[in-house]
Structure formats: structure tokens, C-alpha cells
């Protein structure tokens, strides 16, 4: 091993970036070469000198204010939408193909085979233009979510656990089944988050409340509570989520957000009531204190004060 190599790699040794065999050889060389031993000592001293300046941790105040500023900005920021994700980027595409020729070949074969099979089926089948009827779980294969363009109506069958859903793909379709049916649940979840008709959203959120132990349902209701522009839908979601404020922190955060920011005073009052069982929680207490001090709504201010008065004093 030459001294030149050692000199070039001595810093990597000091920063523990040399491979085991190279490190061993370097140590062996340094043990016999005085000049390189001096260089190693100097490199170690350099590292220690640089370490006299320590990394300053951001202060809690700075971190908190940065988080608050970011949160405000996120309120008005849109994620790159569906179309952005589909935007054709030749650079990425070429890179993928370059690095995975096997995958590219498989995709080509699957595309070719799939295209042939679909053409064959289209020629064989007899296309129908009208609505397709399916009366139960054994009906037509459900459409994947991406094919559904909207839900027309949701009609629960009185006295049973069944529900009829009319939905649009390219054509309008209708299906019926029990609430436990996974297809029905998927359609209801879709309706709760994606539909343009607020009546349908109210119906779907209302039905989904019966399956609150499913985390996907809770997620959909939290979404509705946060982002739905119809107060009726938000109220239904809030009612459904009420019993989970104790156990699910994300539900609690969403309800706190409603209490603080919702434009509808009725919903804020309902959120206040829903949070009663967890008012001793630190985040709830902090929000109540803020509202009691300076909320523009007198009723909310008074109610917050009343709830705080029932809490034990903190040291």
C-alpha cells in the first residue's frame, strides 16, 4: 500500500466510511509509517476541531411557528391531481424502461395479449345500451372504482339490511345488496367522497355510520367532516364519529378542527358536545382555553368556559 493512497483515504477512515478490508490495511500501514501516522493524527484533530461547533437544535418556538405556518399554507394548497399523475413524462418513462427491460417486455406482452382478448370478447358479445340490472350479490361483476362516474341514488330497503344503489359508469347501472357486501361498501365509500349530489352524500354517510368499526369508513367520514361543503353531510359525519373521539386521535383532531374552524355555528356546537367526554385531554383543553378567551361566537365562548370550569385545575 502506498502512502499516496493512504493520504487520499485517511479522511474516509476518520469518518468511518472505509470498507473493512481497506480500513484494516490502512491501520497496518499507519502502524509502520510515521508520516502517515502523523497525517492520521492531524485528520483526527481536524474532526475534533470541527466538532467544537455544535449543531444548534431549532427552538420549540421556531418549530411550532413553522408548523403553524405550514398548516395554514396547506389549507389552500392542492395536491397534484389525478391528471398530473397521468401526465406523460418521457424522462421517467425512458429511465424505467432503461432500468427494467424485462418489465418493459412483460408490459408489452400483457398489453398485446390483453388487447387481443378484449377485441375477441367485444366481437363475440352482444352490446346493450340500456341500464343493466343486477338484483343481488350474484349479479354482474361490479365495476372498479375508476370506472364509476357518479352515484345517482341510494335507497335503503325499509325493515331490512339491504340497500339499492343506482350508479353511473358510461351507462347508469343499479345494484342491490346487504350493507355487509363489500361491493355495496365500496360504492357507499365512493359516494361519500366523490359525489356531486349532496343528497346522495348524506344518504351514504348516514348508512356508513352503521359500520364505524371499519377504519376505511372512519377515514371517509373524517374526510367528509373536514372537506364536504354541505353542512348536512358534515353533521351526519360528526354524529357518526362522535363515539370514536376517545379512542381515535385522528377523529379527535378532525372534531377539534370542526370546533375551531367550521363556518356553521350549529356544527361547532355539536362538536363541542361530542368532545365533552375527552375535555380533559391536553389538545381539547388547549382549544377550549383558546375559544373561551377569544372566539367570536358568544355561545361557543360561554360553553367553552363552562366546560373548562368543570375541569380540575392544572398545576
Amino acid at each position: 500500500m502506498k502512502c499516496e493512497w493512504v493520504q487520499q483515504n485517511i479522511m474516509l477512515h476518520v469518518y468511518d466510511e472505509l470498507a473493512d478490508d481497506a480500513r484494516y490495511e490502512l491501520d497496518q500501514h499507519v502502524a509502520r509509517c510515521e508520516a502517515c501516522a502523523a497525517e492520521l493524527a492531524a485528520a483526527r484533530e481536524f474532526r475534533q476541531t470541527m466538532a467544537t461547533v455544535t449543531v444548534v437544535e431549532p427552538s420549540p418556538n421556531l418549530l411550532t411557528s413553522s408548523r403553524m405556518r405550514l398548516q395554514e399554507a396547506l389549507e389552500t394548497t392542492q395536491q397534484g391531481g389525478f391528471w398530473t399523475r397521468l401526465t406523460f413524462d418521457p424522462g421517467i418513462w425512458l429511465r424505467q424502461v432503461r432500468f427494467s427491460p424485462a418489465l418493459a417486455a412483460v408490459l408489452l406482452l400483457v398489453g398485446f395479449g390483453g388487447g387481443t382478448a378484449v377485441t375477441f370478447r367485444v366481437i363475440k358479445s352482444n352490446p346493450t345500451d340500456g341500464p343493466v340490472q343486477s338484483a343481488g350479490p350474484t349479479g354482474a361483476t361490479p365495476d372498479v372504482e375508476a370506472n364509476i362516474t357518479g352515484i345517482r341514488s341510494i335507497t335503503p330497503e325499509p325493515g331490512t339490511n339491504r340497500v339499492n344503489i343506482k350508479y353511473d359508469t358510461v351507462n347508469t347501472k343499479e345494484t342491490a345488496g346487504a350493507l355487509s357486501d363489500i361491493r355495496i361498501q365500496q360504492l357507499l365509500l365512493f359516494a361519500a367522497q366523490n359525489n356531486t349530489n349532496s343528497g346522495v352524500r348524506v344518504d351514504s354517510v348516514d348508512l356508513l355510520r352503521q359500520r364505524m368499526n371499519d377504519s376505511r369508513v372512519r377515514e371517509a367520514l373524517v374526510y367528509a367532516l373536514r372537506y364536504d361543503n354541505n353542512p348536512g353531510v358534515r353533521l351526519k359525519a360528526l354524529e357518526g364519529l362522535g363515539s370514536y373521539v376517545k379512542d381515535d386521535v385522528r377523529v379527535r383532531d378532525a372534531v377539534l378542527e370542526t370546533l375551531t374552524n367550521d363556518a356553521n355555528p350549529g356544527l361547532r356546537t355539536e362538536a363541542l358536545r361530542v368532545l365533552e367526554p375527552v375535555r380533559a385531554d391536553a389538545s381539547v383543553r388547549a382549544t377550549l382555553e383558546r375559544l373561551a378567551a377569544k372566539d367570536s361566537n358568544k355561545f361557543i365562548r360561554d360553553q367553552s368556559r363552562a366546560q373548562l370550569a368543570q375541569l380540575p385545575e392544572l398545576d
Partner: protein
Amino acid sequence: MAGESLNRIDDTVLVREAQRGDRAAFEDLVRRYDQAVLRLALRLTGSEHEAQDIYQEAFLKAYRNVGSFRFECSFYTWIYRIVTNLCLDHLRRKQVRKEDSGVVMNAEGEEFSVIEQAADDRPNANPEKDLLRRELGSQIGRALDKLTPRERMVFELKHYHGLKLRTVGEMLNTTEETAKNTLFRATQKLRGALSGLRGRARDIRGGDLRDDAGRRGQAI
């Protein structure tokens, strides 16, 4: 190690939820990494105000583009890549402006010295040693400012943030070998610039040890 892989699994779940539009999941991701992001930005800009701007821009960029995140690297590497790019831009602009890095501004617009951040505020601290530490810090700051933005970034990530050079390479969209060469160049320049300081750090550390021994003696 197990904790790290568990973290990654959690990250994957959160990223997928964020990609479906769940803002709460994205905020969870922010809380995992924002302290490290802010620390790096603060260290490289020397200004609370600018660090906050970089923090904000980095996470907003991540939020807008999380849909196109393809899990080719960890979320941690991805967010660091965004931050390092923003910091590199900042360093380049700063080099053009040739600002004096010794004096910076906090969020309230008040000037303060970066070196004072390194001041020893322990009880019984030795003022002489503290002054020595400040002088040393000031010279180190000036030497760091003379590096190119890329050399500075590699050195900061390696020395002050303890990252492996392979990870640093990933973050800077380059190879481990290039990161090694850059670290070599950076340390050569720094050693050259700080050659007059040999032994000063040892004096400070020696002082520290003597002070500690003294304090222990008093306690006994």
C-alpha cells in the same frame, strides 16, 4: 435497525394515505421529519427566517408532488433531497451576494452571531474558554463559507448530521464515489483554511476536562 424498518413501513402507509388525499397522514409525515429539516436549513442558512422559508417551501413541494412519489427511495431520502436542493439554491444565491455569514437575523429581524449559539452557558463556565470557543467557531464559519455549495452540503450532511455518504449521494442525486471525492475536497480546503488553529480545540477540550474535574472536586 428494526425500529428503522418499522418506521419505513409506517412511512409507506402514511405516504399511500397522503397520496389518496389524506392531509392528516401528510401532517404525520411532516411531524416525523420536520425537526431534522429545520435543523439542516437553520445550519445552512444561519437565519431562522430563511430556514423557515426553506422548511415551508420543502413541505409544500412535497405535498404537491406526493402523488408522483414512486417509492424508489425512502420518504426520508426524498424529503431531504428536496430540502438539500433548496438549500443548495440558497447557498448559491448567498455566494453571489457574498453576505457576511458571521452575523445573521432571527425571526424577529434581530441580528445575532452564529458563534454565540455555540457559547458555553453552563454554570461555572470559563469565560476565557468561552471566548476561545467563539473565536474558533467564527473561523470555522468563515472556512465553511469558502466551500462550494456542494462541498458545503456534503460536509454538513456527513460531519454535522452523521449521514452515510451513500445516503448523501442518493440525496444529492449522485454516486457514493462522487460524494467521497467531494468530502475529500471539502476537508482538504477546510484543513488548509484552519491550519493555524492546530491545538486550539485541544485547549478548549482540555479546559473542559479541567473544569469538569474541578466541579466534581467541589461536589465531593
